[in-house]
């Protein structure tokens, strides 16, 4: 359970959420992104293809992250949401706030 980050050749920092993104670890995702942002990263992809579930704190963390990245002139995309995860974004209308691609490849191609 945790996060892996990988710098893609196109300059996108790919963060994979392995396990859950919930109240107990959302701060850590925020720190990982913040640290990368402080180091000059501007393009971010958060991939959920290895994610179990997300709770409202996790969704809230994504909203905060998205805002921070935008403020610093960066770009954030999401990918790899299965049907259950996608329904959380749809229920909360957050699918209208995020750029969501089916696969990480599709998301990377869109940067």
């Amino acid at each position, binding site marked *: 359970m945790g996060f892996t980050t990988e710098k893609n050749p196109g300059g996108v920092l790919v963060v994979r959420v392995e396990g*859950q993104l*919930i109240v107990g670890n959302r701060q850590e995702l925020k720190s990982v992104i913040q640290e990368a942002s402080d180091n000059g990263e501007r393009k971010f992809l958060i991939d959920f293809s290895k994610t179990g*579930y*997300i709770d*409202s704190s996790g969704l809230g963390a994504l909203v905060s992250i998205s805002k921070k990245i935008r403020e610093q002139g960066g770009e954030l995309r999401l990918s790899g949401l299965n049907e*259950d995860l996608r329904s959380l974004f749809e*229920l909360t209308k*957050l699918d209208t*706030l995020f750029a969501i691609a089916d696969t990480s490849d599709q998301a990377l191609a869109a940067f």
Partner: protein
Amino acid sequence: MLERVPEAPDPRESDRTGLPLRVYVRRSGSIDSLVRVETRLPSDVAVVEEAVELIVRHCLSGTTASQRFRFNLSVVLSECLANAILCGNAQNPDKVVAVRAELRRDSVEVEVTDEGDGFDPATVRDPTTQDDLEEPCGRGLFLIRSLADEVRFNPKGNSICLMLRRK
């Protein structure tokens, strides 16, 4: 209760020996099992993931639940525990969160109770309006109400009871 099944064309009937084989099947009396599972958790968000896993495991024990049921149950449990720990008990290490689950054949009822002062759930706003879309908080009860089949609070508001159908 004992039923001999001589009619059934048992594949072993024509076994190597050619001698008769009989199969007796027992129809067991079935319990319409109501099982109650209880645990208490410290007021620390670091335990939420493990606690959700533990409770979900008991709720699914011996059943063939859908992935959707497992997912929804995990999300709403995580929400309830987070609210109990953060809003209810304010992470006070002297306070605990009590979880009680009633496992029925077709549904699961989960009650999460904290030692806080409670609140009035009617005052919670809809987080999906355009104005609130960029708020980092306030989606918990909304998700609970969306994913659970029934939601009740006690009058004080420090205990929430959810029902989810196994489907």
